[in-house]
Structure formats: C-alpha cells, structure tokens
C-alpha cells in the first residue's frame, strides 16, 4: 500500500481543493435531477456554487504570491496523467465564475419563476450547475483535451439554457440553434488544433506542450494547430467577426441565464485563449506576434467601434447590452495584443470588472422585464423612477461600462490606455477614448429612457423582492468598490500577468 500512497500528492482536504472546485457542481447536477424537488433544487445549486466560490477564494489566497498548485487526478503524475493547475490567473477567473454563479442564483429563483414554466425549474438548476462545472473545469485544468471536454459540457448546457427562453419568445430556439452550430464548429476547430499539436509534440499537457514546442521549434503543423486553436476559441470568445451568435443568444435567453453567460462564458474562453497565447506558445514566435498585431488589434478596434455603434441604434435594452459586450471583448483582446505586462493586467482586470458591471446591468434589465414584459426601451419608460434601487444599480453598472472615474470600469480602461502609451501607440490610446464616447451615447440613451421620460400612468412597477435586490446591490457595490480599492483585482491581475509573461519569457530562448 505504501508504494501507492507515495504516488498521491494530495493528502488532506486542502490539497483536494482544485478537484473539489469542479466536482462539487458536477455532482450537484444529477443530484438535483434525482431529487426533483423545485425548492430543494435551488438550495442544492446555491450550496454547490457557494462551496465552489469559497474554494476559489481559498485557492486564490494560496496562489496570490505567484506560486502554482499542481493537482494530479487519481495520483497519475503529469504529463501522462491529467493535471489541474491553479495559478493567480486561473484562481482569479475561478473566483469570478463561481462568485457570479453564487450571486445569480438567489436572483434566478424569482426571475426563473417568472420566465420559465414550472416543470422545467429543476432541470434549469441542473443545467446551470453543469454549465458552472464546465466553465470552472475549463479554467482549472492544465490538460488541453480536458479543456475541450469541459468546453463542450458548458456549451451544451448553455444551448439548452438559452433555448429555455422559448417560453417567452420562440426566437430563443433559433438563437440556441445558431449558437449550437457556431459553438460546435468552434469547439471542433479547437480539437483539430489540438490534434495537430499532438501530432507535432506527442503530448496534451499544457506545460509539457510549451516545453516541447520550445525545444523543437516551430513547424507548419504547429502553426496550423495554433491557427485552428485561435479561430476555434475566437468563436467561443465572440471575437469581432465571429460574434454572430451572441446578440440573439443574449437577447432571447432568460434574464438569469443572460446575466450568468455575459459575465462568465466569454471570460472562460478568453482565459483559454490567454493560456494558449502565452503559456503554450509564446510571444517570441514571429507568427504569434503577427497574429496579434495584424488580426487581434484591427479586429478589436473594429469591435470597439462597430459593435458600440450598432449598440447605439438598438431599441431593445438587452440587445444593446449584448452589442456592448462584443465591444468590451474588443478591449480585452486589445489588452492582450499589446504584449506588455500593463496591457495583460488591463485585459485580466477588465474581464473581472466588465463581468461584474454587465451582470449588474443584465440583472437590472431582468428585474424591469418582470414588470414591463419586454426589454424594449418604450416599455421601460420612467422605470428608473418607479424602481429607484434597480435604477441606481443600472446607473452604477452603466457608469462602470463607460469607465467613469470612481467605478471599476475606469481602472481597466485607464490601465489599457497606459499600456498603449507604454508601447508608444498613442493612436490606439485615442481610439480607446473615442470608443468610450460611443459607450457614453448608448448608456446615456438608457439613462434617458429610465429617468427622463415619464412612466405611463397605470405603471405599478416597484423594486423587485429582496432576493433579487440583494444580488443586484452586491454587484453594483462591487462596481464602485473595485473602482477605489484595486488591491484585490489589480493586485491579482498583476501577479497573473507577470506569471503569463514569465511563463513565456522562459521559452523565448
């Protein structure tokens, strides 16, 4: 027995945290289906995501000094066994995903009751747990094929969650179908890329892949693999020309689902993109630099302007926020493409800050839709006055979206501008500010409708019940809090960015 025991690195519960992070929601999902009780389903889902959140916080606390936790599944050492690898970046994104999951659930209870037929409630929570599992797994794992499996777990459950909006509008079904086709093509491209990398290196462990690619140099197979991985993940990220699935999916999905997806799904995909760009490949390779300069930067700039511009002309608030998401993803990819520590920290911090702001905004819209029946601007007239707290939450989220000083969004945009100046790219710095002006216009339109128009005389809307208000207030508070106290977000983002760059610097030579 002793021989077996020495193989296990993990001995007590603390050492098992990386796998528990993923396993708890995974077990919760079938449990919910078996028990089949609506109220209990919610309680289990909430307990599981709260547990995941606590674990993520503990993990972040363990790796904030720049260390790395390597967990061997089943005691099989990497590169042969599957490894879960937690560093500052992954712990931070884990915290974002599980945190948003935990905050969305109390909100979802009332929101789901209003938007989804009763008999689907337990299944909704089961799928929500599966989606959470997939997203957490994508971030926690250090094995390339494992990423694909978790990606598909999260995607498949997302398609169903989006389709659950069909009760209100049948277009949710076609939105889900479109998303399924695009998402599957993206995931399959990702697998083709992995196949090519495996062909060239004979390994699937991310750290091992990096080592072997650095050892043997680049050949055409590796290059093709890189291209497939970037395009495949680009589809999942909703990188500008590949974003077609996003607006409809966000518009027609149930409010709670939109909130969760907008804050987490694209962020997990960006995380995987970061891992491949910096941990597996490294900016020292010519073709990667050129990919970033010639593809990422122009398309992110296009996203920042075109998507914001389209957002200005929407009549549906949810759809407007969806287009704004595409623009904000542009900022993140731009930060990545700057290829310096400041830009990377800006991208990472913007993932968190935008996640929080968008979640607050989508929650606010969801609460208003419960009373107005639709997210069209003319149905939301004056609701900010009728629902003062919800309105205030949306103001906080909106200001953070623009990047007004004193909100979380300001910090990340400020970092982004600084990063642009560091590279001497003042034109891009100006572009960032100009595109923020577009954000001012569309956020202003929202304020105008919510506050400056008179509500209809028979409008009986009031603030939603407490379980919906508290999550909204927490997120709005976070939008403001992270605008002043940047210790947690910016501090971890810096460690994460340094980790990413250090990882690649070692491979450059």
């Amino acid at each position: 027995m002793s021989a077996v025991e020495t193989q296990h690195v993990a001995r007590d519960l603390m050492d098992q945290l990386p796998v528990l992070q993923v396993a708890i929601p995974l077990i919760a999902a079938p449990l919910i289906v078996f028990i089949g009780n609506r109220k209990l389903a919610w309680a289990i889902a909430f307990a599981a995501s709260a547990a995941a959140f606590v674990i993520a916080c503990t993990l972040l606390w363990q790796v904030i000094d720049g260390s790395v936790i390597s967990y061997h599944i089943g005691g099989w050492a990497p590169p042969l066994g599957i490894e879960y690898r937690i560093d500052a970046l992954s712990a931070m994104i884990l915290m974002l995903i599980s945190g948003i999951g935990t905050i969305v659930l109390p909100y979802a209870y009332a929101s789901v009751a209003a938007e989804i037929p009763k008999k689907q409630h337990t299944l909704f929570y089961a799928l929500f747990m599966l989606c959470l599992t997939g997203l957490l797994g994508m971030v926690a794992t250090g094995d390339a094929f494992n990423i694909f499996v978790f990606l598909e777990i999260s995607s498949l459950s997302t398609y169903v969650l989006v389709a659950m909006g069909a009760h209100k509008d049948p277009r949710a079904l076609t939105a889900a179908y479109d998303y399924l086709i695009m998402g599957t093509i993206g995931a399959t491209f990702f697998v083709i890329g992995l196949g090519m990398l495996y062909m060239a290196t004979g390994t699937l462990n991310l750290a091992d892949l990096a080592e072997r690619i650095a050892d043997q140099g680049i050949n055409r197979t590796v290059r093709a693999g890189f291209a497939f991985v970037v395009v495949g993940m680009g589809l999942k990220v909703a990188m500008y020309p590949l974003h077609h699935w996003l607006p409809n999916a966000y518009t027609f999905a149930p409010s709670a689902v939109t909130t969760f997806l907008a804050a987490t799904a694209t962020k997990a995909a960006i995380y995987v993109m970061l891992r491949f760009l910096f941990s597996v490949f490294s900016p020292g390779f010519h073709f990667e630099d050129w990919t970033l300069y010639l593809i990422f930067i122009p398309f992110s700039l296009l996203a920042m302007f075109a998507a914001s511009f389209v957002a200005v002309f929407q009549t549906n608030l949810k759809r407007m926020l969806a287009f704004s998401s595409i623009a904000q993803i542009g900022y993140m990819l731009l930060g990545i493409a700057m290829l310096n520590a400041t830009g990377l920290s800006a991208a990472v911090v913007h993932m968190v800050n935008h996640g929080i702001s968008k979640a607050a905004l989508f929650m606010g819209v969801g609460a208003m839709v419960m009373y107005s029946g639709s997210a069209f601007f003319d149905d939301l007239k004056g609701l900010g006055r009728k629902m003062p707290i919800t309105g205030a939450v949306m103001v906080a989220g909106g200001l953070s979206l623009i990047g007004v000083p004193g909100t979380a969004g300001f910090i990340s945009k400020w970092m982004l501008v600084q990063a642009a100046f560091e590279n001497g790219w003042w034109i891009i710095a100006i572009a960032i500010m100009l595109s923020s002006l577009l954000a001012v216009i569309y956020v202003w339109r929202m304020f105008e409708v919510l506050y400056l128009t008179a509500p209809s005389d028979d409008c009986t809307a009031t603030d939603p019940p407490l379980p919906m208000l508290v999550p909204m207030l927490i997120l709005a508070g976070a939008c403001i809090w992270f605008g002043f106290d940047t210790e947690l977000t910016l501090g971890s983002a810096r460690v994460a960015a340094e980790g990413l760059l250090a990882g690649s610097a070692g491979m450059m030579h």
Partner: protein
Amino acid sequence: MERLLDWTFVVGHMNYWLFIVLMMTGLFIVVARGNLVKKIIGLNIFQAAVFMLYISIGKVTGGTAPIYPVDMQGHMQVDPSIIYSNPLPHVLILTAIVVGIATTSLALALTIRIREAYDTIEEDDILKIERHMAAEDNKEHGAAMGGRA
C-alpha cells in the same frame, strides 16, 4: 533535382487528404444548406472528419493493436521488439464521439421545437417569419425611438 510532386508522400497520406475533403464537405453543407436537419448532417460529417484525423494520428507504421498479453500470474508480458500503435488518440476520439452524439441529439431536439414553433425547418422561411416579427416589434416599439430597431 527534387521532384515537384512526391507520389509516395501523396498516396501515403491518403487519410489526411480524405480528412480535408470530408471536413470541407461538412463545413460546406453547414453553410450552404438551408434545411436545419441537413445542417446537422453537415455538422456530423465535419465532426466525423476530425475523428478520422485523430484515428490516423494513432497509427504507427507496422504497429499492432496495443494489447499486452498476460501470463498465468497476471503479469503483463511487454515485448520491446513489438511495435504497438498509439492508443491515446483513439481514446480521445471516443470522448469526442460521445460529445458529437450529445450535440447531434440536442440539435435535433431543438429542430423539433423550432418546427413546433415556426411550422417549418427551412432557414429561409424561418428568417422570413423572424423578419416579420422584428418588423412587428418595430411598429410597436420603434416609433418612440425614431422608428427603427
């Protein structure tokens, strides 16, 4: 002088050529066909192509099935002189096949629901209905915002 076209290379990589042909066929069907079920079939062909790629990777020239014989005591008899094929890509693709089945069944389920809601599974007709719905939305909600959605 090196020959422009190395026929042994071309024929020796038959699997990979077929992979590309199948992949492109699948992608073309997904893009070009308007029928939702045909799109799913295209997606399936596309995925099957990837399965073929992975299975081809696993083949080692002259390799046999990677099964170690076991002696009476249950110990594996590993003979280093025998070449085995690589089982890992095959195992990986088993997972991908399962994922593919899940995707296909979900897509078909969605198609059934779409047919119930729209009474058609032709993309053109669905788009026509959705454009009509958007126009209705515009008429109802767009006037306040300058008449457009």
